[in-house]
């Protein structure tokens, strides 16, 4: 999915996290026994189930709440969740697929130029913060979109947001700010 035709930047979605509910109690022991690709974690009170296609890992709790991670698009996440629900149905639980919601989307993007992080932080204080001794990237939080962008000096970005649209909007939002920080600012001395 690209953000906008004019910028022609490739935004690659690497992870989509979604949750849904089965509206029924799930017996974790049964799932661990009768399901393949299942890891039982009694100390956390959950079961990890991995699907092959789409490549998704799901954490299943006995309350019926399930979190799916590893999908590369919102639709894939939905498909994986439905597949999981069907699987649980076949195992004998009265599953009612409901409250599906994409909770977090992680994407990476690469600018065709390097970014001078100190100038970027100076121009965008206090929304941007940069501590070179702690982390090599500058962090930019967009409150309105509830998105966080990590900007690396090589021009790579990692964006996290509540859905794919917000992530794309965040990249569009931050692009002009990065564009003007390509060259190091001239020394004022």
């Amino acid at each position, binding site marked *: *999915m*690209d953000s906008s*035709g004019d910028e*022609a930047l*490739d935004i*690659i*979605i690497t992870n989509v996290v979604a949750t849904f509910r089965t509206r029924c109690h799930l017996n974790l022991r049964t799932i661990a*026994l*009768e*399901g*393949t*690709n299942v890891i039982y974690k009694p100390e956390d009170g959950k079961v990890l*189930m991995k*699907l*092959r296609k*789409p490549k998704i890992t799901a954490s299943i709790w006995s309350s019926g709440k399930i979190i799916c991670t590893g999908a*590369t*698009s*919102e*639709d*894939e*996440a*939905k*498909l994986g969740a*439905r*597949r999981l629900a*069907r*699987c649980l149905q*076949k*195992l004998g639980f009265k599953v009612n697929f409901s409250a599906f919601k994409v909770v977090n989307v992680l994407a990476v993007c*690469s600018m*065709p*130029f*390097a*970014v*001078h*992080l*100190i100038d970027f*932080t*100076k121009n965008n*204080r*206090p929304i941007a913060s*940069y*501590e*070179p*001794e*702690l982390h*090599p*990237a500058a962090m930019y939080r967009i409150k309105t979109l509830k998105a966080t962008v990590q900007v*690396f*000096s*090589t*021009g790579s970005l990692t964006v996290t947001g509540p859905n794919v649209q917000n992530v794309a909007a965040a990249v569009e939002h931050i692009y002009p700010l990065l564009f003007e920080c*390509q*060259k*190091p600012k*001239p*020394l004022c001395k």
Partner: protein
Amino acid sequence: MTSLAGLSCPGCGSSNIVDDDLYSQAQLVCADCGFVVSEGVLADEPVRGLDISYSRTTAVTKRPCVNLIRGLERVKEISRILRLRGEVEDLALTYFKQAYEHESFIRVSLQRKEVLAGCCVLVSCRQLNWPITVGTVGCLLNADPTLVGGVYQEMLKVLNVEAPTVNITDVIEAHCQEYKISSSDVPEEFAEESKDLTKRAVALVELAADSWIVTGRRPLPIMMAAVYLAWQSLKPLKHRLSFSLDKFCQLAKVQKHKPAVTRITELKEALCKLGKEIPWVGESVTPGNVVQQVGDILEHRYALLRRALRTHEDAMQAECRSSSVNPPSEEMVSSQISERVAQTASSVEQLPLSNEGGKQAVEEHSQEFEPNWGKRVLFAPPCVSHAKRRRVEQPTPDVTGDEEISDSEIDSYIRSPREVREFSQTQKILASSSGGKSQ
């Protein structure tokens, strides 16, 4: 007052004995004649302190918390070690008092409170233009820099303040002073005056900043690399050139940082790019022999930079003309040679890529250009010029999310009844055998 059954007063014989504590000392007294039947022993008071925690007693209002006082003393101590101005110390004390009372810091471990003291000093130094690094604070507190970083970020949130980022050129002077290589510490052939060393190291760091070596990296290894190269180049004779970074650090009595070795290589590469443009050097400039030229390079830095940019651009244009251009996309190389001395980035290029459809995978066009933009410019962040090869993602077929899910697909995730039986039997066997072994 409570009546206690089963006791009789030795004085008057009545059974009306009550609990009447006097000044918090337990006493059993006869209500009729006033005879004290028994007294609690003061020695029964809790020895190891009150049963009630300090924060719930009234002592809080009468006497400030001991750890708060200790923390304030620590702030003063750190300020004195760093020889900070009075106003910096006062600001740090104010911040500490403010942050200490906040719920995120009032009930944490003593180590965290000590780190908080250091962080208050750090933020007030930054705000009042007295730059110190997080590493310095970590050293003073003898704490892990990651812990210091975490407490620092939390403290900034709690106090709702900002601090300007530390510029590496400001910190390097203080850093150079740590190196013990003045003529009183080491033999004459290795000695350097701190002044000269600092001046050259600052010039090297500025060059590093312009060639993308500094952005995004930890400052300390870069400073170490700059000081080492500065020291070598001030007297580039054989005995200095043969000194490795390890030996130099031992000589100067500082702790070596491993990333400094990579920074030295990167700095030498950048110096070579400029060194190639020196008109009076006949032989080719390599990282092996560039140290001798460092003095000249730094002196004529800007002129050499302009020449290097021009050479690079001519080379790029020649390449464009001779190579065949890909039909679907066009390349425009527009160059801007800046007359202003300080602008150092090289040619700006626009690549209007044509983008087809809604593929999520990396497109072939961008795959070609992506790793190359780093090679097109004279100076680029090292991670871009030596880019890692990315795994080519297989484009996933269009998924809608509402497709039909076949039964056979789901069955592949469920064990057959026979498998279930075998699995549970194996589990029982394993459990019993491990139980037997553990006995």
